[in-house]
C-alpha cells in the first residue's frame, strides 16, 4: 500500500471514530440517544389500554408535562396542545393502525410510531410560537392532511 494511502485511511477512519465518540458520549453519558422505547401494546386494543384509554395532556411537575397521544390515519389525539414557554414535554405515543411518523418541524422531535409499540420522546420548548406537528411516514391517501400544532406561549 502506498504510504500516502495509508495516511489517508488512517486520518479518515480517525474522523469517523471521532464522530462515533461524539454521538456515543451524548447517547450514553448525556442520555441524548434516539427515541428507542421498548414497551409494547396490543395494537387492536389501544382504546382499552392504559394510559391510552385517556389520551391528553397532564402537568406532572414544575413546568413539565406529559402528553399521552394516539396516532391514527389521519390525525393526532389530542391535538392543538398549548404549553407555556420553557415547558418540558414528554410524549408517550402509539399507533392505532399503520406506521406513522411524529415530527415537529424545526425541532429534534422525530420518531417512528408503530402499531404494537409505545414510543417516547421529550423536548423542552423554550421559544414561544406555533409549532407544526406532522406525520412523516406515509400512512394512506390522507397522509398529507395529518398534522396539528403545539402552541407555546
Amino acid at each position: 500500500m502506498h504510504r500516502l494511502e495509508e495516511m489517508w485511511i488512517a486520518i479518515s477512519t480517525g474522523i469517523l471514530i471521532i464522530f462515533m465518540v461524539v454521538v456515543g458520549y451524548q447517547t450514553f453519558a448525556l442520555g441524548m440517544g434516539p427515541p428507542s422505547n421498548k414497551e409494547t401494546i396490543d395494537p387492536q386494543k389501544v382504546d382499552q389500554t392504559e394510559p391510552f384509554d385517556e389520551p391528553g395532556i397532564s402537568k406532572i411537575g414544575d413546568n413539565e408535562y406529559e402528553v399521552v397521544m394516539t396516532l391514527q390515519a389521519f390525525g393526532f389525539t389530542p391535538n392543538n396542545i398549548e404549553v407555556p414557554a420553557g415547558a418540558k414535554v414528554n410524549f408517550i405515543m402509539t399507533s392505532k393502525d399503520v406506521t406513522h411518523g411524529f415530527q415537529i418541524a424545526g425541532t429534534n422531535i422525530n420518531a417512528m410510531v408503530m402499531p404494537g409499540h409505545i414510543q417516547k420522546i421529550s423536548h423542552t420548548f423554550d421559544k414561544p410560537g406555533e409549532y407544526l406537528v406532522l406525520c412523516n411516514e406515509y400512512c394512506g391517501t390522507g397522509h398529507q392532511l395529518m398534522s396539528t400544532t403545539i402552541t407555546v406561549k
Partner: protein
Amino acid sequence: MAAANKNSPKKHTDNENESSLRGTIVSVGFVGAVIVIMWAAIFGLYMSRI
C-alpha cells in the same frame, strides 16, 4: 516542491511526475473536508434545536 521539480533534469522530472501523488492527497483532503463540514453543519443544527 513544484519549483524543485521544474529545476531537476527532464528525465527525472518525468519519473517524478508519474509517481507523484501530491494531487491525489490534496483531492482526498478535499473529500475529508466535505465530510467534516457537512457533519459539523448538521451536528450544529442538531445542537441548536436541543
